[in-house]
């Protein structure tokens, strides 16, 4: 199985045996409460220098309240898994959190261009599916994952991929290095105190991200009893023993949609775009992140009850978003 070509870029090191050792030493197999507030969860489980993944994005079931807390705590030197993300990359870069991005897709912005230009941000090239595949490989405890895509692109050269000769068909095939992120942030519809979590609707790679990562923070719209979760185990997306922290976060996806519960805040989008089109995100970040002490304070001071109720009212479709 000959290596025919390989990318020349650095990639986040893959080490399945090291990951297994971490799991063995750090993952709690007892069913114990992991409930904590967002401040404690991010302080304990997001470290400067971590490789971080989050599922979905700032507009759609993303862990927006956790992302704001990461910015509020001034985490830095984060290597980000930038799959299927519109504005979150720009926000985190603008807040000084990020020093490297594995690019799947992000919304172009001046703040990102400036950071790349001044050398404070390094880009590694992938695509959405190659990143979700890398997470799949990590979620399965494997060092790599095969793909019949990615070969032939110029991104290949700026990635950690290798083109090898498949020893079965003798055709060329791409191997992507697996990802075991240091930390995953995932927003769920429901979770219990142990970390069992339910996500309804589609997803990008929430199960893969949770299974692949060393540390997992779940925020949830609703904390339900473990007894309730056990009544429908087939609806449970993520099992407790991979989860390190559970944060109650109603409207945690704000300003994004939480399908079946509330709509996205259409009024917020132009505000964000205006900020992104400018030289600096400081005004936006000050208003929505730094000038409030917590997610709840942001909801109370910046959004308000009436708007929140209105967002719930606008989400008229609920079919399929209940266990």
């Amino acid at each position, binding site marked *: 199985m000959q290596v025919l070509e390989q990318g020349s870029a650095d990639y986040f090191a893959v080490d399945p045996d090291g990951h297994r050792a971490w799991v063995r030493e750090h993952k709690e197999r007892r069913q114990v409460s992991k409930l904590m507030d967002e401040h404690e969860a991010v302080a304990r489980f997001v470290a400067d220098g971590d490789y971080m993944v989050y599922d979905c994005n700032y507009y759609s079931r993303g862990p927006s309240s956790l992302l704001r807390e990461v910015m509020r705590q001034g985490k830095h030197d984060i290597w980000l898994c930038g799959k299927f993300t519109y504005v979150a990359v720009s926000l985190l870069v603008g807040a000084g959190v990020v020093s490297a991005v594995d690019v799947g*897709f992000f919304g172009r912005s001046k703040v990102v261009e400036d950071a790349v230009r001044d050398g404070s941000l390094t880009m590694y090239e992938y695509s*959405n599916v190659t990143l979700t595949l890398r997470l799949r490989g990590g979620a399965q405890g494997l060092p790599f994952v095969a*793909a019949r895509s990615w070969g032939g692109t110029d991104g290949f050269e700026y990635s950690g991929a290798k083109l090898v000769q498949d020893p079965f068909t003798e055709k060329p095939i791409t191997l992507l290095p697996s990802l075991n992120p240091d930390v995953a942030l995932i927003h769920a519809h429901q979770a219990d105190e142990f970390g069992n979590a339910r996500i309804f609707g589609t997803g990008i790679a929430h199960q893969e991200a949770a299974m692949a990562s060393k540390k997992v923070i779940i925020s949830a719209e609703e904390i339900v009893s473990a007894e309730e979760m056990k009544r429908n185990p087939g609806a449970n997306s993520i099992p407790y023993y991979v989860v390190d922290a559970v944060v109650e976060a109603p409207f945690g996806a704000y300003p994004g949609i939480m399908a079946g519960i509330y709509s996205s805040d259409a009024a917020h989008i132009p505000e964000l775009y205006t900020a992104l089109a400018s030289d600096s995100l400081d005004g936006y970040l000050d208003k929505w992140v730094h000038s409030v002490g917590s997610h709840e304070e942001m909801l109370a001071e910046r959004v308000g009850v009436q708007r929140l109720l209105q967002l719930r009212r606008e989400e008229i479709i609920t079919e399929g978003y209940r266990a």
Partner: protein
Amino acid sequence: MTAAAAFSEREHMVVKVARDIEDGANYWVAGGGGPLYAVLLADRLGYAKEAQYITEDGVIAPEAELPFQAMGSMMSSRAGYRAAHWGTMNTAGDHAQLGYMDYGILNTLQVDQHGNINSTVLGSYEEWTRRYGGPGGAQTIAAQCWRTILMTDQQKRKFVNRVDFISSPGFLDGTEGARERAGLPAGTGPWRVYTPWATYDYEERKLRLIERSPWVTVDDILEECECKPLLAPEIGVSEPPTDEELGVYRTELDVRGQTMDRGTWVIKQDDGTYQRQEMGA
């Protein structure tokens, strides 16, 4: 069906794609906007009631509740309404890798004579002038769907000899078997490029002009191509959109005017010819 009196050039492009949607085929549509609207338009107009689409977040064959909210064409309850199946991004990727996607439809920033697609940088990779957001889902769509359809504007800087960066694969260097040598599935690749002015296919893996819009000449088109496409023996002329097509498009799909408010409009003249008119002019 009545030919419309006024429409944007981009609306014309979406309508052209909608008319070419193959009934009973599967489409992997990239993101929102034109690609998704084209498939939905074909359904709503009855052109291809049995074509189905899959989105990047793993929605299979939904009965989308229109219109979408802003940024709501994926991962929203309206977009996924009454689907046959809800999966994830890897579901969509697996089904594409298995050959279930007859077509992929993409918007693109820059395309070259062999159908390669750039959504990464303008300029060289090290000395770029603009940094874009990467291939997203397009890379997998272009690699694995049987036939890839591109939608883009007809501009010289968008039709180049060699894209500045291959973010998503076309026929690569254009030689026979180049995709297979790069590890991509056999028998896949670019199929059509639609612009507001023109439609292209490929002959021996090289872009070929097959149709023009009635308000432009072949020379107009070639003027807006850095890469000179091959020319089909006969260049057809596309039918402008009808009132019925635009009615559905504007009231149910592009309700926020994403394709309507930008670019150039076309006005039908009393003599039956069409005149381009810049927006705001």
